[in-house]
């Protein structure tokens, strides 16, 4: 840890000194099954999140998460072979409440055959002005190791840091809002080691060839997000979200979302529409004019200019009400099913599965369905 990081952590802890009276999160356990299915990729697995208080000022949280990946995506189909992979992630955290101040620390470890990541996070929240305002400062430090499954000697480091500040504000008795600003810096190996760029090559029978992509070694991004949720004149809520994003790779993004939440008896239904629009990275190209045409080059479709659309439907049923009667250890229980329909339209990423003259291939579009089923218990 550098002196600058230590100073920042010390500042966070010092800010936590003033204290009055806050609230720790509920004791709760969630068991979730997730399935992503689209674009030739299937990813599923469990996520288990358990939170438990210890005394009046401590709360512990643990999460175990697995991605089981079976990929024959367009990148894989056009430049490599389909593969299966498993990523396991676990995290442990602690909240310490002192008066109106909550301090949090969290450690996360993620592991797969060719990528390991460790992240440690700190944050401090302070409730102010009669608990109408909550100010949160956060910092996280990530240490990743990138390797290749086909080259045991290949290892590259990637360091990540995140600085965030958030403000949650009760505006009226029906309206709550949040404002978040986050800066993330990356330094190290940012390529995907398996991906390639395409360049025009008259000597090739298809008119183009591939070479490894080469990214800059640094990236700094800024994101500013705002959300507001309003309690309607009848018992239902509406939420609006907006996020502005930019980074040193010249990606600029706008994301907007609108949600409607409607309870009925023991059920709660949510509908949400989300739209994201971004420009491409300055070193991105679908087709470079020749080999090593630029200092940096990439053809990851996520760095292409694109628009994504998501329509979410979510329903939950509270099968155990919080009416004072317990079932075994639990005072409340809920089951939730959620489906997201995701469509991504790429403005500069060709579908090379279609045979066409070089540069005239149709643009690629991705459709995916994302399912979540989870049980939640309060105790």
């Amino acid at each position, binding site marked *: 840890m550098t002196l600058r990081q230590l100073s920042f952590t010390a500042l966070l802890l010092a800010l936590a000194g003033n204290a009055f009276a806050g609230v720790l999160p509920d004791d709760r356990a*969630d068991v*979730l099954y*997730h399935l*992503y299915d689209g674009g030739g*990729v299937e990813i599923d697995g469990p996520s288990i*999140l358990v939170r438990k208080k210890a005394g009046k000022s401590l709360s512990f949280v643990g*999460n175990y998460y697995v*991605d089981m*990946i079976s*990929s024959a995506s367009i*990148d894989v189909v056009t430049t490599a072979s389909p593969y299966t992979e498993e990523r396991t*992630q676990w*995290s442990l955290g602690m909240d310490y409440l002192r008066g109106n101040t909550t301090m949090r620390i*969290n450690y*996360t470890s*993620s592991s*797969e055959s060719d990528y390991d990541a*460790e992240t440690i*996070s700190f944050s401090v929240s302070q409730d102010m*002005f*009669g*608990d*109408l305002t909550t100010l949160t400062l956060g910092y*996280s430090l*990530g240490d*990743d190791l990138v390797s290749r499954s086909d080259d045991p000697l290949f290892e590259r480091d990637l360091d990540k840091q995140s600085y*965030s500040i958030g403000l*949650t504000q*009760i505006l*009226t*008795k*029906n309206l709550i809002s949040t404002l*978040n600003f986050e800066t*993330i810096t990356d330094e190290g190996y940012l390529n*995907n080691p398996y991906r390639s760029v395409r360049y025009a090559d008259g000597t090739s029978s298809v008119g183009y060839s591939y070479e490894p992509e080469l990214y800059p070694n640094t990236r700094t991004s800024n*994101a*500013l997000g705002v959300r507001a949720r309003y*309690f309607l004149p009848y*018992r239902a*809520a509406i939420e609006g979200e907006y*996020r*502005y994003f930019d*980074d040193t790779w010249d*990606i600029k*993004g706008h994301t907007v979302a609108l949600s409607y*939440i409607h*309870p009925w008896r023991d059920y*709660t239904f949510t509908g949400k529409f989300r739209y994201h629009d971004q420009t491409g990275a300055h070193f991105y190209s679908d087709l470079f004019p020749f080999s090593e045409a630029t200092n940096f080059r990439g053809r990851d479709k*996520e*760095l292409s200019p694109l628009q994504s659309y998501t329509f979410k439907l979510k329903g939950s049923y509270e099968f155990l009400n919080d009416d004072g009667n317990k079932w075994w250890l639990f005072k409340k229980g809920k089951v939730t099913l*959620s489906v*997201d329909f*995701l469509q*991504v339209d790429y403005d500069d990423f060709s579908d090379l599965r279609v045979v066409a003259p070089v540069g005239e291939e149709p643009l690629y579009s*991705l459709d*995916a369905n*994302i399912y*979540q089923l*989870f049980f*939640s218990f309060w105790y």
Partner: protein
Amino acid sequence: MINLLTEYGSTKRILLALLIAMGLSACGPIEPWVKPYERDKLADPIMALDGDAVSTAYIQHVYEAREGARGGEGAAGGGCGCN
């Protein structure tokens, strides 16, 4: 022009009032304008901004893998999970 001047004058008055209000508020504690007994609707579970953390973290991870933008919405998990 008269309208513009009038509007400019009223803007100045509003700004002056805001500055006075901010100055006064700096002299004493800010009174909560939504009292604790008026927060029953805000305490309703349908008003929870992050009601299901396990689900929010998962869907943020999906978007970070599929789009070039990141951050500004709270923390998501590490690792790659690409392709």
